């Protein structure tokens, strides 16, 4: 394959910092894959797997942080709840405030801060809150708790995974806007 075979008019800009740079390199590689001929097929599948691995690592990292944030938020809220509703000592409320402060710190480790990702967090949060009520207060979720959770999850899947036109943002969790 000669240099003169390179697709004309294809411009590619690499970003300068961390996650955006990674994304733009992925985009460049993927556009190369599209362009490349059959001889490149084997190599391109390797590159594709590599790109997926990078993306999924980010997703897992992001999900872990959401889990941690949910734990801090529900845990802190529960401690304050114990203080005000169950008449536990003020020390519970003080710890609750501290844990909620930690909850404010956790999202700063997220690579980006996006409203669509936040909606996904809502889904994780609903399930975690019902589990918390089950494990710590012994309240079994009733039919309509479960039904509502299923409906809300459907909504979140629509927000997240409905295929968009190519010019729109990428689907799902992505570290670039």
């Amino acid at each position: 394959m000669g240099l003169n075979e390179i697709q004309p008019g294809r411009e590619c800009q690499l970003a300068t910092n961390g996650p955006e740079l990674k994304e733009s390199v992925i985009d460049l590689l993927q556009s190369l894959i599209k362009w490349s001929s059959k001889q490149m097929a084997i190599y391109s599948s390797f590159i594709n797997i590599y790109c997926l691995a990078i993306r999924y690592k980010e997703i897992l990292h992001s999900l872990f942080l959401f889990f941690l944030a949910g734990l801090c938020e529900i845990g802190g809220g529960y401690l304050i709840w114990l203080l005000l509703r169950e008449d536990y000592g003020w020390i519970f409320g003080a710890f609750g405030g501290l844990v909620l402060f930690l909850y404010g710190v956790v999202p700063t480790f997220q690579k980006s801060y996006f409203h669509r990702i936040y909606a996904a967090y809502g889904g994780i949060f609903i399930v975690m809150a019902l589990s918390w009520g089950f494990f710590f207060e012994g309240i079994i979720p009733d039919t309509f708790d479960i039904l509502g959770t299923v409906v809300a999850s459907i909504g979140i899947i629509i927000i997240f995974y409905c295929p968009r036109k190519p010019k729109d943002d990428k689907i799902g969790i992505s570290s670039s806007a």
Partner: protein
Amino acid sequence: MELAHQPNCNSFVLFAFTFALFSVAAIAEIGGGYLIWHWLREKRKPVFGLIGGLVLFLYGVIPTLQPSNFGRVYAAYGGYLAMAIIWGLLVDKKRPDRYEIIGGLIVILGSSIIFYYPR
């Protein structure tokens, strides 16, 4: 809580009261997180973090006024996090697309079933 335990409390008043509590909680949560975000990520003064912590504490107080059990209140609140889409519209100037609006409405519907279905 006081309002909710009135035996003759109008169900619309109760709905408006709880809905307002969910909305205020969402604003306090996102606002508090936003202040701490500004402190740590945008290198603002620590006083941002302090006020953010206080606002988050207030956020912990608000759900205790809700007339239900802990798990159900917090689960229903989770759906209201879809309001972050409105936050994205107002603060980040990012217009929600069709599926975000439809999905957001369905999420609110789901969490309303959790909280408002009469038992």
